[in-house]
């Protein structure tokens, strides 16, 4: 192997690129960018400003942060509900004046001052909420108006009563404690902000009203259709924001013991920047309190840091503006392109050198040589059927198959021209098997293992197994259950082909070629599901050996058949029986003469085999080309192969005309005939096998004469 190829093999097989895609599917990755910015900002100003981390300076900063964070939490909730509140600064200022006025001018107690602040906030919030929520005015303009009016009222009041406040001698220990004291080293604003954040977070993520707010922000119309009182919900978000601004106003009143023309000036811009920089979407529905808090810390550290480094207000505003612009851009681009990024990074191919194979070309003379014998098969359900992955016949000769519409269709014997929907399961029913009692068991792609009783009741048997310890993406879920067979003791052995792709994306797994296929067993006695084997390249067909002591299973992308021992000295281990076939292996089923049928869902091509040795090329291909142009294994040609217990190939059937059975995913022998299914086909084939036992049926072979 050339050294370049060896390096590629090491690089792509040892470095787990697929984890990037799996991590990106997590919702919490939305927090990654704000969090990195937060760390960067603190690191930057922490090193640039001497004494940034000293306790006193930190105490003062956090006090301010507490007040600011409370405002930001309020604004975050409004934004989550799909609105915006520009009036937080003026409400904040008015609330400050309300507390200061109550306390210093009217000489009322501290709690009354606090209530006065809250009432002011609630009143203005309610005005906003009424106009925006119930009268459905534009949030931006409405709150801009309240902002201007509120500010004007505040300016008049400050001029009028400023002197009176300055002259007052009112004092209170409680007032001073809220302004200056600490509790267990934490200042009151910090504690207040912490509590509020906690309560708000729990409400948003766990309580009914929180879900309503997110739903309204996510899609107003859908929320309305779902029966949510949209107007009331919007109203409440503004009231909440007003209350938060009011509370913050009270806190700053205690800290500064006064109100001046500068109180709360520019706060709306700071708060808005904080909420957006934290990663809350301007459009609503996406965001969290934690994001708001991160934004608050970023903005406050940045503005205070710049002031302490000696930059003027102009620079400060400029930096804020730029941050806001960048955050909005990233937010919109990310929201729009997240799924594209995910698509592009999700496919993470690995290196594989496929073994040399014997040719399957018609004139090659090998046991694999394909022919066009299946072209002679009669078609069943042509035009009425889509995607019969597996087919099976019951004791009364009726024919069953799954379809891509999630149905199990039954064709009636003897001519199979009439059909009915036997049961609707959903998902994509793939592998089928009858148990001893005549229940139809099916592996349903994207759903799990299901049982359909003769009376058509559908029962879920299993949809999960134990999660593996190193998984990032939850692999307990069965993503692509593919085929099954039932042991004499009733246990159901089945495969889950891949942990990386959903059932309908099964072909993408061949591009990646990562071994994540599993063999599992479901035990009907206790309802448990256990993983027996893991790490195969697309596990597929399963078939009990005729003696019931072992089972065969197919590993599609590696073109192999393995034998898994259920009893005997090798119990619990698997060994490869046939390797390096020229076709991709699919379902395996019993043949009447004590051998086995196996389907090829597609054929290897030299160009695709070569691409498996070029993972970097495949990676670039998935990024640079639309999916329709990707190089695929040839699944336009398949076939049927017969093999015996020693792994010898006995016969091969194909349809090189490509008309009837371009690809084959399953075949079932029944009374001297072979019934052929294909996951991408629109018919079932019926082919008479020369020299086959005309009495043999699968039901009898498995369950004896009783069935």
């Amino acid at each position: 192997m050339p050294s370049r190829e060896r390096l590629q093999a090491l690089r792509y097989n040892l470095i787990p690129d697929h984890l990037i895609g799996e991590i990106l599917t997590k919702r919490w990755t939305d927090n990654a960018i704000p969090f990195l910015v937060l760390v960067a900002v603190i690191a930057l100003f922490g090193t640039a400003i001497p004494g940034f981390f000293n306790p006193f300076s930190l105490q003062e900063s956090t006090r301010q942060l507490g007040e600011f964070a409370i405002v930001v939490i309020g604004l975050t909730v409004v934004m989550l509900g799909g609105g915006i509140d520009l009036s937080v600064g003026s409400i904040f200022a008015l609330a400050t004046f309300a507390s200061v006025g109550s306390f210093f001018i009217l000489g009322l107690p501290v709690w009354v001052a606090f209530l006065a602040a809250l009432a002011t906030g609630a009143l203005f919030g309610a005005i906003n909420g009424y106009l925006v929520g119930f009268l459905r005015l534009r949030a931006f303009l409405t709150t801009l108006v309240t902002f201007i009016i509120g500010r004007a009222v505040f300016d008049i009041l400050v001029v009028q009563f400023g002197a009176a406040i300055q002259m007052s001698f009112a004092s209170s220990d409680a007032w001073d404690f809220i302004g200056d004291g600490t509790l267990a080293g934490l200042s009151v604003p910090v504690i207040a902000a912490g509590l509020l954040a906690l309560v708000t977070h729990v409400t948003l993520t766990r309580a009914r009203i929180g879900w309503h707010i997110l739903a309204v922000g996510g899609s107003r119309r859908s929320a309305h259709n779902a029966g949510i009182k949209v107007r009331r919900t919007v109203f409440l978000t503004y009231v909440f924001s007003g209350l938060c601004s009011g509370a913050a106003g009270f806190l700053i009143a205690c800290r500064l013991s006064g109100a001046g023309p500068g109180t709360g000036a520019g706060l709306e811009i700071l708060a808005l920047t904080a909420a957006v920089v934290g990663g809350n979407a301007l459009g609503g529905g996406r965001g969290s309190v934690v994001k708001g808090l991160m934004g608050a810390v970023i903005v406050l550290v940045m503005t205070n840091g710049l002031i302490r480094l000696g930059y003027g207000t102009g620079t400060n505003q400029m930096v804020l503006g730029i941050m806001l612009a960048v955050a909005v851009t990233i937010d919109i681009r990310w929201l729009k392109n997240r799924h594209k990024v995910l698509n592009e990074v999700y496919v993470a191919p690995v290196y594989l050198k496929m073994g040399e194979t014997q040719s399957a070309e018609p004139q090659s003379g090998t046991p694999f040589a394909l022919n066009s014998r299946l072209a002679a098969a009669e078609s069943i359900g042509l035009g009425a059927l889509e995607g019969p992955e597996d087919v099976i016949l019951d004791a009364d000769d009726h024919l069953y198959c799954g379809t891509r519409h999630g149905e199990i269709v039954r064709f009636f014997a003897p001519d199979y021209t009439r059909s009915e929907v036997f049961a609707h399961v959903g998902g994509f029913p793939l592998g089928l098997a009858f148990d001893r009692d005549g229940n139809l068991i099916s592996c349903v792609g994207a759903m799990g293992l299901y049982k359909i009783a003769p009376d058509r009741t559908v029962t879920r048997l299993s949809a999960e197994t134990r999660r593996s310890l190193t998984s990032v993406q939850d692999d307990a879920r069965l993503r692509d259950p593919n085929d099954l067979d039932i042991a004499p003791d009733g246990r159901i052995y089945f495969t889950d082909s891949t942990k990386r792709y959903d059932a309908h994306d099964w072909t993408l797994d061949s591009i990646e070629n990562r071994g994540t296929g599993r063999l599992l067993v479901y035990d009907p006695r206790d309802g448990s599901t256990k993983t027996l084997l893991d790490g195969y390249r697309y596990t597929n067909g399963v078939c009990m050996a005729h003696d019931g002591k072992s089972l065969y299973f197919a590993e599609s992308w590696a073109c192999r058949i393995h034998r898994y021992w259920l009893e005997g000295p090798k119990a619990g281990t698997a060994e490869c029986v046939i390797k390096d076939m020229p076709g991709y292996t699919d379902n395996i089923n019993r043949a009447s003469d004590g051998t086995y049928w196996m389907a090829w869902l597609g054929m290897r091509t030299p160009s695709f085999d070569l691409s498996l040795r070029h993972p970097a090329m495949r990676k670039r291909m998935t990024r640079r080309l639309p999916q329709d142009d990707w190089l695929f294994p040839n699944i336009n040609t398949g076939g049927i192969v017969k093999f015996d217990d020693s792994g010898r190939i006995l016969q091969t059937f194909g349809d090189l005309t490509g008309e009837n059975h371009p690809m084959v995913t399953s075949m079932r022998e029944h009374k001297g005939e072979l019934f052929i299914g294909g996951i991408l086909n629109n018919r079932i084939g019926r082919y008479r096998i020369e020299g086959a036992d005309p009495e043999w049926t699968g039901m009898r072979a498995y369950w004896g004469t009783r069935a």
Partner: protein
Amino acid sequence: MIFDPILDLFRGKAVTIPPMDGAFRPNTALDEAPVLALLDEPDNLAVLGNELVASSGNALYRLVPGAEPRPLQRFAAPVTALAVSAGGQLAVALETGALLVDGVAQHLLPEVRAITGLAFSADGALWLTNGSAEHAPSDWAADLMKRRATGSIWVRRAEGQPFHKVAQDLAWPNGLCPRPGGAIAFSESWRHRVMELDAGGGLKPLIEMIPGYPARISPAPDGGAVLAVFAPRNRLIEFVLQETHYRADMIREVPRDYWIAPALASGRSFLEPLQCGGIRTMGVHKPWSPSRSWGLVVRLDRQMNPVSSAHSRANGHRHGVCSAIVHAGRLVVASKGGDVIVTLPAEG
């Protein structure tokens, strides 16, 4: 978007190809066209003494409507190009690089290995395109996949004079069409364009961004021309052309019929590469799916602008059109990949 060049570094630049639109809008005209004759791999069409002739393998066939093609003349090697002069002289180029005019071998420099096109201009000069200085005509796929541009154009001004080179470093020139004023138009296949070489030796593009690999051009009586396009452009192939290591390994290890490369016909063996869109689903092969082969003939007006086209799409069989010619009021099209010669209306 302005960020695209930066983002491309991380996500990879998208591979794009010109769409089949406007004059190239797909249809099924070629698939529905009446058959003139069945002939294995018909390559170059020409009119000899008012009769239609076609080259196929080592021989030249006369095409008579309603009858089997009759062999006219056989050669030692496959015929790669034909031309008939106004005076009835027949020039035939062979796979070996030999050029015969009325059966007499002409002297050529060894650099001329792949005569892909021949044409007599009105003044009696004989022009030839040499596709490659390295590969024989049948090795065209290798020339493309190795990204060569060693083709050249030669001309013999009058009988008895030697050929001299008038243009070089061309990417598989293929097909010639004399133009008024001593100029000559030719296809430059690997660069997807039709160029014009004027009397002074200057080159200028006539048609660019053709959604396929252009082949021969023949003049039409109305002053326009007919352009055969022998294979479609395909994003995967364009992508592989940029993948140095994969391409080198493919050329070394994979049999040529199974390369990811344009082809005159496809879908004949299960060992050929398959693209996602080409998967046969529910018994249907999507006609617009990406394909290595396609049938395409383009009618050009007097200014050599594409006017209309006839197609055989991904699910058709009349692919690999290397030559089309207007004869007796019809457009005769030779589908080398479909082993058939069909006729279309001259105007369309």
